[in-house]
Structure formats: C-alpha cells, structure tokens
C-alpha cells in the first residue's frame, strides 16, 4: 500500500542493529537477581514462606550474601545439594533462609558435576515449556484460530482473580480472541513475584503462577465451548520480567507485554537491569512460542502523537532487533502503536492512517498491535465512541494483527459489562462493514498519506543516526547514552541510576547459567 525506498528501510534496520548490538553485548556480560531467580523457578522451586517471601528470593539472597552471584546461582546451589546440605531445592531454600547452609563456588570436578546436576534440573522446566507449546499448537489445531484479523484483544481488571475469571469468559463469549489480565499497579516495582491466587489488587490483578494457571484453565474450557482458541495475555515487565516470562511459559500464556525500553523510561528501572532481564525473558518467550506485545503507545501518550510519531518507529525497530537477537520470529512480534493524535487537529485521521500504514509496511510479517485512543478521551462517552470507531477503521484498513478494543468510558471508570459490549459492537460493525477495505485502499504515491509516512521514516532514520552519534563520559553504548540524556519520551535515565540497579551483577569468568545455555542451544537436556 505504501511505496517506501527499500534502501531506506534497510538503512533504518541496520542503524537499529548498530544501536542495539553494544547493548546486547553489555547484557551478555551481566546477570540479575531476577534472571537467577527465574533459573531456579525453571528447576521447579516455587512457593513462599509464611510472610509470602518466595523461596527463590530467599535462596538467591542467601547465595548472594555468602558467595556472590558473579558465578551464577546454579553452581553454588547444586553444589550444596550434592554435598547433602538438603535433599531438595525447597528444603535448601528453607534452610538457607534460616542461615543454616554454607555455600561455596565449586571448582574443578565439583563444578562440572554441580553444573551437570543443575542443567538436568533446569532442563525439566524447559521441557515443560516445550510441552506447553505443543499443547497450545494442538488446542489451536482442535479449536481453531479466530476467523477474522485483527484478533480482538480485551482487558480484564478487577483485582480479584475469581472475579476476573467469569469476566474473561464472558468477554470471550462476546467475541474477544485475546484476554489480557492487567496487572495491579505497582507490581512492576516489586522485586518478587507474589504467590498464590490473589483477590486484592489496585486497578488490576497480580501476576502470579497460580493466577496464570487458574485463568488459562478457565479459558481452555471456554475455548472448547466456543470452538476457538482464546489466548491469554499478561505482562512480562518491571523488576521481575524474567521470572514472569518463565511462569508464563510454564503455564501456557500466549502473549506477553514485553518492551525493550518501557521499564526504563516509564518506570525508572535501571537501563542495564532492563536490558539483561529483557533478553532472558525474550529468550523464554521465543522458546515458549509466546507472542510479545511492545509498548510504543506510551511514547504517544506522554508526548505529542504527531511530533513523536518517529519515536514509535525507532522503538519498533529497536524492539525488533532485540527480539530477533533473542530468538523471536516475525510472527511473535506484536509491535505496538496507537491512535493518539489530537482529534481536533486537521487531518488527524489521515495522519493516523499514514503512521499505521508505515508500521504495516516496515513489518509486513509481524502481527502489529493497534492500541486505542486514551489521551484524548475526555469523559464525553459519545464522542469517545465515535473516536473508537475511527480507530477501528484504521485497524481494518491497514491490516493490523491485534486490536486492543477501545472503551468509550476510558478515563471514566474501569469498563462495565455494557461498555465492553458496546465496544465490541463497534469493532464488529467496522470489521464487518469495512474489513476488506485494505484491498481497495491505495493512497496515491504523492498524496498526503504516503508523503507523511515517508517523512516519519526519514525522521526515524535521523533519530537513529543521532542516537549512534551519542556518547557519554563513562563510555556507555550510544543507545544508553541517548537514553540517559532524554532522547526518548523526554525522560533522562542514566545507566548508573534507576530502580533495581543493586540487582545487576557483572558475570565472572566461570559464570554458569544452564537455562541460558539450554535456550541458546535449543537443547532439551
């Protein structure tokens, strides 16, 4: 639909790669407490003490306190098990929490044996993820994919998993293909994953392994009832990104929100922590066959959606690079963008079309995630309903893959049952009436839409060039320097600051993480 210079597109990708690669190298040189905890979760360690502090936190903290995490948690833990400090991981974590275990970094043959034992234990978790992926494929074959594109994505958020379940099932019956259980605000800044089924959350429900399991089981039932596989989404973001990704793989979630820079910019999480955690979580997602959703909509809600259009493209290109480097494939890249241009400016709809079309053209094989207006939803629900209709129309014309259903009561209340029903009627009407319009829609080469799209691509290339030219005194990769001086979202996030920095550890030469090894080798044992 859009004629862009192939050389320009190639150039944009190569610049994104140049900006991303040093950051990946930096990520490879570090581990984090959450990566190490995720490793233990793969080996089957779960549960929490009576104060709900997870055993993985206890064990990682104990190891770190005694011998550090520079060699990884696997070697000292499986060495302790081999020395008979405890009979299993949970007992070891319990004893370690009480200070009754002495850890050491095993050397020589001890290290080899500990590494082998660790690999065997962790491989069981990886195989569970593999099995879940096979199960998903089977269920999709049995029940089928949604009949239409884009897939209809609806959010459920009550705070109580037992309220979420009937709401999610009702939403699926009403036509939702993807259910996202939004997380409790603030979970992103917790440095542990809460445990068990939860009934208390603010503006969302905690992501826990048990909540994942309960919701997936309920949606499996509904998928059977509806003859359509209903996908489940949660958030692999914040300080526990690797662990939540792991739990998602183990419990067969189908999509995860997972952005390369969102936590840095909008949650003030340390940049290095984010990039390390993100790489591990994306390796898990790749293995688990999970589709990631990136968060470019956020750039548009915090800045002007016309002026910042190119930052979305740049972020999509970076997200694509980081995702592919971690092993994700095109079909797994739900790159985000949003309908957030001020509706009072002239040609706002044409601008939206141009931006959406650019994303579609740059990433032809990715199931783009199209997000509805929020910033210019004023509380006038009638006007909001119309705006959502136009949003749906852009989604239909430009062939988006995943359409997050906009609510006319955005900025008023968390959606009521009737809001959701009306919103779905809106989507269905537009898709039914204009779903095939992409066939007829060929904006002229020198018309407003194509010209604008090319302009945004040009600005994106210029911004990437700017990023690559950036530098700072400590010699950080240019992308980190750019993040530090406020290139994105006008937020300054230096690599030496931010939440979770104390959980970042530089790897020592003998570092071992069998989970990363298994993921990178594609091995099962």
């Amino acid at each position, binding site marked *: 639909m859009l004629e862009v210079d192939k050389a320009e597109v190639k150039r944009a990708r190569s610049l994104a790669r140049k900006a991303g690669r040093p950051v990946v190298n930096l990520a490879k040189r570090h581990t984090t407490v959450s990566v190490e905890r995720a490793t233990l979760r793969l080996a089957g360690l779960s549960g929490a003490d009576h104060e709900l502090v997870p055993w993985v936190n206890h064990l990682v903290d104990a190891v770190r306190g005694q011998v550090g995490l520079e060699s990884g948690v696997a070697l000292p833990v499986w060495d302790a098990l081999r020395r008979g400090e405890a009979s299993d991981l949970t007992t070891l974590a319990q004893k370690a929490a009480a200070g009754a275990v002495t850890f050491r970094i095993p050397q020589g043959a001890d290290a080899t044996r500990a590494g082998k034992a660790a690999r065997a234990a962790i491989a069981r978790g990886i195989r569970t993820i593999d099995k879940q992926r096979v199960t998903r494929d089977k269920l999709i074959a049995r029940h089928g994919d949604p009949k239409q594109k884009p897939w209809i994505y609806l959010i459920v958020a009550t705070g109580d998993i037992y309220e979420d379940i009937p709401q999610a099932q*009702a939403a699926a019956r009403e036509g939702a293909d993807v259910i996202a259980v939004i997380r409790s605000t603030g979970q992103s800044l917790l440095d542990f994953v809460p445990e068990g089924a939860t009934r208390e959350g*603010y503006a969302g429900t905690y992501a826990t392994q048990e909540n994942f399991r309960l919701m997936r089981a309920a949606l499996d039932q509904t998928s059977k009832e509806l003859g359509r596989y209903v996908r489940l989404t949660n958030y692999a973001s914040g300080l526990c990104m690797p662990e939540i990704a792991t739990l998602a793989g183990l419990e067969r979630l189908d999509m995860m929100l997972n952005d390369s820079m969102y936590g840095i910019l909008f949650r*003030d999480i340390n940049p290095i922590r984010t990039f390390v955690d993100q790489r591990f979580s994306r390796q898990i997602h790749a293995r688990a066959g999970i589709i990631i959703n990136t968060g470019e909509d956020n750039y548009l809600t*915090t800045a002007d959606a016309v002026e910042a259009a190119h930052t979305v493209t740049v972020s999509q290109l970076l997200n694509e690079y980081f995702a592919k480097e971690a092993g994700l494939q095109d079909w797994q890249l739900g790159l985000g963008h949003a309908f957030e241009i001020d509706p009072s400016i002239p040609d706002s709809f044409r601008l939206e079309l141009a931006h959406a079309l650019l994303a579609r053209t740059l990433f032809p094989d990715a199931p783009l995630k199209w997000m509805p207006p929020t910033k210019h939803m004023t*509380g006038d629900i009638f006007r909001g309903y119309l705006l959502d209709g136009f949003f749906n129309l852009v989604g239909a014309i430009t062939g988006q893959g995943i359409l997050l259903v906009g609510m006319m009561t955005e900025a008023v209340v968390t959606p*009521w049952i*009737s809001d959701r029903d009306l919103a779905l009627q809106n989507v269905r009407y537009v898709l039914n009436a204009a779903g095939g319009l992409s066939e007829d829609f060929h904006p002229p080469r020198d018309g407003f839409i194509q010209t604008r799209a090319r302009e945004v691509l040009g600005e994106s290339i210029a911004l990437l060039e700017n990023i690559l030219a950036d530098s700072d005194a400590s010699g950080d990769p240019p992308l980190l320097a750019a993040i530090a001086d406020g290139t994105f979202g006008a937020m300054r996030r230096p690599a030496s600051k931010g939440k979770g920095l104390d959980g970042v550890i530089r790897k020592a030469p003998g570092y071992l993480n069998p989970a990363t090894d298994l993921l990178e080798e594609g091995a099962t044992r």
Partner: protein
Amino acid sequence: MSPTRAHEARRRRENPRTGELSLAEAPSTGHGPIVRPYGDTTGDGMVQVSFTLPLPHDKRAEGAAIRLAHQMGIEPALLVHAKAIGPDFTFFVVYGPVKHVVDIRAIDIVEREFELLSSKEVNTAIRKHLRRKLVVVGACIGTDAHTVGIDAILNIKGFAGEKGLEYYRELAVHNLGAQVSIPELVNAAYDLKADAVLVSQVVTQKDAHLHNTTAMSAAFREAFPAGQVPHLVVGGPRFEEGSAPSLGVDRIFGRGTTPGEVASYLVHALVDPTTPQRTRKAKSA
C-alpha cells in the same frame, strides 16, 4: 418531541398536579432559579439513562427497567432500547421526563477564591513580592503511573491551550514523574526548598487516591516543623471539591483544571503581598 411529551410539558405549565411544581414557576428564559433538564422544550425535564440489569432479556426484565426508571423519577419512562449481554444481563436505554426540579439558589459551590492571572501577571507578582523564584515540586505518588495529570499542569506543553507551569519564568518547577514514594517526595521537597508540592492522582481504585493523599500530608507534617510545611496541592478527577481539610492538604483541584488556574492559585496562596513572607529557609542550615 412526541405529541405526548409536548402535551405533558403544556399540562405541567398550565395545570400542575398537586405537589408538582408548575413549569410556569420556572421562567422560560434566563437561568433558574428553578431548573429541570432540557430536551427540546423548556421545562420538558427530559433525560436519558442507560444501565444494565442482571437479568436475562425478556418482558420481565423490561418491566424491571421501567420500574427502576420510575423510581429514579422518570415518568413516563420510554424504554427505547433493550439488548441482551450474554445470557444473564440486559442493557437498557431509557428516555423520559424527570419529575425532579432543582432550585439553584440552594446549591453550595466552591467559588474560585482567587483571581485568574495571566502568565505575565503571575511572573510579575512573584518577582515583586516574593523576590525569588517560587519553587514547585510535582509528582504522581504511590503506585499511580499515570502522569497525564501532573504533566498537563507542569510540562511546557500544558493543557487546554494554556502553557504548563514550566513555562513561567518565575516558577522553578521540578517534575519528579510517576510512582514516586512519599519519602522520596518529602526529601525532594526538603532538598529543593519547595514552596508548593503538587501531587496528581489519576488512576485510583478502592479510594487509593484518598489513602495516598492523607499518608502524604501526614508525612509532610511529620517531616517539617509546624508552619514550614510546603503548600500541599492535590489534583485528580476523583477528588471532591471541599475535601481538602479532611485530607490534610491545602487545596484540591478537580477534572479540567488548567495550568493557569494552578499558577494563579499559587500566587494567591503564597505570594499575596498582604501575607508576611514565610521564613522557613532556616531549615536548610
């Protein structure tokens, strides 16, 4: 308007029932003092409501919707739309005249207690009477990650065509962003010698905005000596006007507040030439 309703309006004007306020009492032009909703004829009282009942869609559900509308004071209630939402719920749209009237003389409103100033007047007032920059620290506290509110007020870009506080030459604005913990905010206010602290609470559930606000004001009163606490201002769509004292803050701003209003208010509250300047700078020692 249907003939029935036009007739109804006429009847109420000319021949009100006992206890029913005659539409003749309400002047047909001008504003009040007795008002009722306006559809297309003065005094017709027309409203629209929509709601969902937890009933399957059938005659009984429709009857229930009409009865509910009656109890809400809508009579006659015109059920214009009913649609099943799944097997257990029905959505209704009801139109009709409400029998209630409002006497606007009995409404208590918080009149704006300060004069609206232009940005130039704000700057001049600060320069002239405070003789230094007025320091404003803003943040979203607690778990609220939605900076739209605070950004609309503080960022240069502003809101509703008005530039944000960062635009004012005589205001030193520090926007701490989202998910700032209360201790962080108190420390920042202390270090920056804040004259005013602006806190935004947009997304809230189970009264989180109220809990956060009282916790915040308590923390400030604990950390600062009496009389030296920065001026505490909270904003957000869910706050009630007039609840500032019970929350322990100095002022609350609701939905639709513009940066210019906040700036004018700050001048009114902090640089009024008739109030003596506070001498809380000693604490920096």
